[in-house]
């Protein structure tokens, strides 16, 4: 056995604190060490060459690099030793930067001693490292996109364009999501539907996209490249092959104009059989099982009028949920967001005072396709004085601490729309800071102010209260005179979906303190989750405006396409394995495994190497140490501990 030790100076990051020459000299005294060197930047080309040459000339069997965190350069050095003909898994890294020089900048002597210890431990472990063989598995050339908002639409279109089969699963009857509810988009004031609907139609038409609306993902099994997804296609009670979307059924429905219309934020009414909005894709009707008289009572007059009205014979009240299975290689989660419910803060009077509405309700009020056909009115009158209140549910120490990122600009847009549609109207915006950071945002904000919109600043902690006064509402903000307004619009926060716990359980991906899905690295891997093969698009990862959502969705599409294009993936051989004689078959590892990679077979644990991600939970829970992780076995760890505790080992 010949171990080579390479100590990195990392410029002055390490050598500024640790005496690298001393560490390298010390390493020579350690058992099995054939060569020990130090260099300015081990990760640079000359540094790498140093290692490669030694492997070839001295016939090194194991290499230890003492430098930064393995998170940083372990893959680099694994490749280096592999290129020189050594097995990549006979390489070990000692972290003498994050764990040593950076942590002990003012204790140079002790830091050097600690660096020696770390090197000693790594050498002890390296001596026990065994070569591991990489394995490859084929990738199912298909992708799943969960969520049919703009993020999901963008992702699905781009993966499909790359030539791969894409399943787009949407839980509501139509794709389009939140963007479909918007009237105009800031800062350019494009009509939201005008830019969205062509994309929706593209989805429906694309030969590579299979659209599954009114469907939910209920189970995910497998691993990157080979996921099996269970999807529940909820009963629509309408045969979508036959339905032509004529709408005669909705006209005939006994509950016509009597069911709250969620697309219009319950400001309008629909029938029990409905399409969410006129441009819905697919333009197929759905019966609301919570409302339909026939589905609830088994009777609707002599016969349900919708059935009589349908010339295509598409309505089938006996339809049942259908469970289907999809095989995909990668998954993009684009489940979107919900909006903060301002009735949680009674001081705003939302839900009690008719004059107080949310931003999204304003969107529907101002939209030409909305319940008032775009006419802004409250209590049947056009408002003369409108107050907007920002940061409702955002930047709140007790609630959502984060900034929702879009409210400043959508409020500016709303203010502009009021001035545009009601020229004489007085518009006041209570804001804390106006965050106009995006392209064209600041210009738009200035333009809105120039149009005569009055911006009043208030601190977040300042008290604010909205009280009813006849058919008006009085906004009492601390430090400002009371304002009697006809309409008060609350800029409510973007929040994680309310039913996220259900989706989380299926996806097994983690969420951060803000409840949004957690990316693996906030800067460098913003679309990756801790589960390989599952990526994040849009607001499920955090609040975003449309451009950012589309950018991230495209990124997620690119990420999800890579394994599909490669056709096969390397599996990390550092998986767990079972020492059968020691296994009592208690099954704790089976329960602990987050990837369902372990099964009990004839009373013994068995690891599926393709599913195992090498997290080590199983070996940490096993009381008798019968399940071990390759590259981190008890023997290897014990040798590190023992070497650190004694001069000799």
């Amino acid at each position, binding site marked *: 056995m010949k171990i080579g030790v390479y100590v990195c100076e990392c410029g002055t990051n390490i050598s500024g604190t640790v005496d690298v020459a001393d560490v390298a000299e010390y390493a020579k005294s350690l058992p099995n060490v054939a060569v020990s060197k130090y260099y300015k930047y081990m990760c640079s080309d000359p540094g790498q060459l140093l290692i490669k040459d030694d492997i070839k000339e001295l016939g090194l069997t194991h290499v230890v690099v003492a430098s930064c965190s393995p998170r940083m350069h372990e893959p680099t050095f694994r490749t280096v030793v592999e290129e020189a003909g050594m097995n990549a898994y006979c390489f070990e890294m000692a972290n003498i930067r994050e764990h040593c020089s950076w942590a002990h900048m003012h204790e140079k002597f002790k830091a050097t001693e600690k660096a020696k210890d770390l090197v000693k431990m790594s050498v002890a472990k390296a001596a026990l490292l065994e070569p591991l063989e990489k394995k490859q598995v084929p990738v199912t050339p298909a992708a799943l996109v969960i969520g049919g908002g703009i993020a999901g639409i963008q992702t699905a279109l781009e993966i499909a364009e790359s030539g791969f089969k894409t399943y787009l699963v949407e839980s509501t009857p139509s794709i389009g999501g939140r963007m479909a509810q918007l009237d105009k988009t800031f800062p350019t004031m494009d009509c939201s539907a005008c830019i969205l609907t062509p994309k929706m139609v593209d989805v429906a038409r694309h030969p590579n996209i299979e659209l599954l609306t009114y469907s939910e993902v209920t189970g995910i099994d497998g691993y990157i490249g080979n996921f099996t997804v269970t999807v529940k296609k909820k009963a629509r009670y309408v045969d979508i092959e036959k339905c032509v979307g004529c709408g005669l059924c909705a006209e005939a429905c006994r509950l016509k104009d009597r069911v709250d219309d969620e697309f219009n934020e319950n400001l309008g009414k629909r029938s029990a059989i409905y399409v969410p909005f006129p441009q819905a894709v697919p333009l197929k009707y759905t019966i609301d099982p919570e409302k339909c008289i026939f589905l609830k009572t088994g009777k609707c007059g002599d016969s349900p009028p919708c059935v009589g009205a349908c010339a295509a014979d598409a309505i089938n009240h006996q339809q049942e949920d259908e469970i289907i299975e999809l095989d995909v290689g990668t998954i993009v989660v684009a489940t979107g967001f919900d909006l903060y419910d301002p009735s949680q803060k009674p001081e705003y009077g939302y839900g009690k005072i008719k004059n107080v509405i949310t931003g999204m309700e304003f969107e529907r009020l101002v939209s030409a396709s909305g319940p008032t056909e775009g006419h802004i009115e409250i209590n049947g009158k056009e408002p003369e004085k409108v107050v907007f209140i920002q940061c409702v549910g955002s930047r709140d120490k007790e609630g959502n601490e984060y900034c929702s990122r879009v409210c400043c600009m959508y409020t500016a847009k709303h203010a502009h729309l009021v001035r545009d549609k009601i020229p004489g109207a007085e518009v006041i915006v209570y804001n804390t800071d106006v965050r106009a950071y995006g392209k064209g945002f600041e210009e738009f904000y200035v333009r809105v102010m120039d149009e005569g919109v009055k911006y009043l600043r208030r601190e977040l902690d300042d008290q604010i209260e909205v009280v009813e006064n006849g058919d008006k509402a009085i906004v009492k903000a601390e430090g400002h005179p009371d304002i009697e307004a006809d309409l008060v619009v609350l800029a409510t926060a973007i929040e994680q979906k309310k039913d996220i716990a259900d989706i989380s359980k299926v996806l097994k991906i983690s969420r951060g303190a803000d409840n949004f899905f957690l990316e693996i690295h906030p800067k460098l891997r913003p679309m990756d989750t801790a589960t390989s093969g599952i990526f994040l698009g849009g607001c499920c990862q955090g609040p975003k405006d449309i451009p950012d959502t589309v950018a991230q969705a495209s990124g997620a599409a690119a990420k999800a396409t890579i394994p599909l294009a490669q056709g096969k993936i390397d599996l990390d051989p550092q998986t767990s394995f079972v020492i059968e004689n020691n296994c009592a078959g*208690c099954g704790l590892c089976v329960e602990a495994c*987050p990837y369902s990679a372990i099964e009990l077979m004839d009373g013994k644990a068995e690891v599926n190497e393709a599913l195992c991600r090498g997290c080590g939970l199983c070996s940490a829970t096993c*009381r008798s140490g019968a399940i071990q992780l390759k590259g981190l076995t008890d023997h290897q760890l014990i040798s590190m501990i023992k070497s650190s505790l004694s001069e000799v080992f």
Partner: protein
Amino acid sequence: MTDYKALEKQIQDQARQWLESGEVKYVIGFEKGDNSPVCRPVFIYKPEDAGKLAWGPLCNNNLTKYLVEEVQIKPKKGEEPDLRPVGIVVKPCDSKTIVELMKENIVPRERVKIIGVISEGTINPKALDKALKDVPLDKIAGIQILDGGDNFTIKYDGEPLSVPKDELLNGKCKVCVVHNPVVYDIFVGDKVTQIDKDEFEDIADLEAMSDEERYEYWKEQLSKCIRCYACRDTCPLCYCEECVFDRTKPYNWNEKTVDLPENFFYHMVRAMHLAGRCVDCGGCERVCPMDIPIRKLNRFLLKRAKERFKVVPGINVEDKAMFGDYDIDDPGEGIK
């Protein structure tokens, strides 16, 4: 008040019936000791021996350890294994052990037929010795103990003694809230009304200590340990094929040396390996030759498991293992 004689008869009758029909391989139970009133484990193979089975407040062992050994025996090559169930006599605490063993796939339900006996508490033999200090030695083996409500009545050919239960009961029985077996094929005795709370008053003094004080306490206790491993060997939940403490160099986590750090390491690991599993049958403390209060450690585990993880071991086979369960909506900080 428990009528031990009546329970004993029921146990004997049931064992006899099972052995006659051949539906059990043998019955694990208790018999009277030769020179001591304390009962000892017995294996009854023949129906005519069923009359040996004894019952009383001195049936202290948790017999399920033998059950584990029975199911772990590998048949000899070429030999058909006899997979008939084994009969076993259990107290409520022992029955909780069976729940854990079933949960952990060690004892399949069909491999055991359980005679579950109610228990209102068992007697600590050391405490009994104290109470019998005035009884002549040659009379001790022949004493008879009756349940007298708040007292135990000890009969022998002399003036009967009446000793308050509090003086004689095992520590675990004083805090026990499960007086009826939780899993059984045959329920023996009249159902005891249970109080459903355990306030862990017995470890309140330890809880009240500062970390330093508690460390001093355990230092004193654990320095007594001679590492005989009796606590491990008697524990039915220590069923590993190879115990981590039996590993030899270079695969061993700790050394065999009997000194404070190694003793601490042993006892902490033993405790952690039982966290969320230990049902407080008290076997470990009963067998400790050095009188280390091992149960106090176990009681800490039970309290933490209940408070922090809402886990009460030994009640429901469907419950998930404390360290195997993962809640995606865990209210804990930083875990979601």
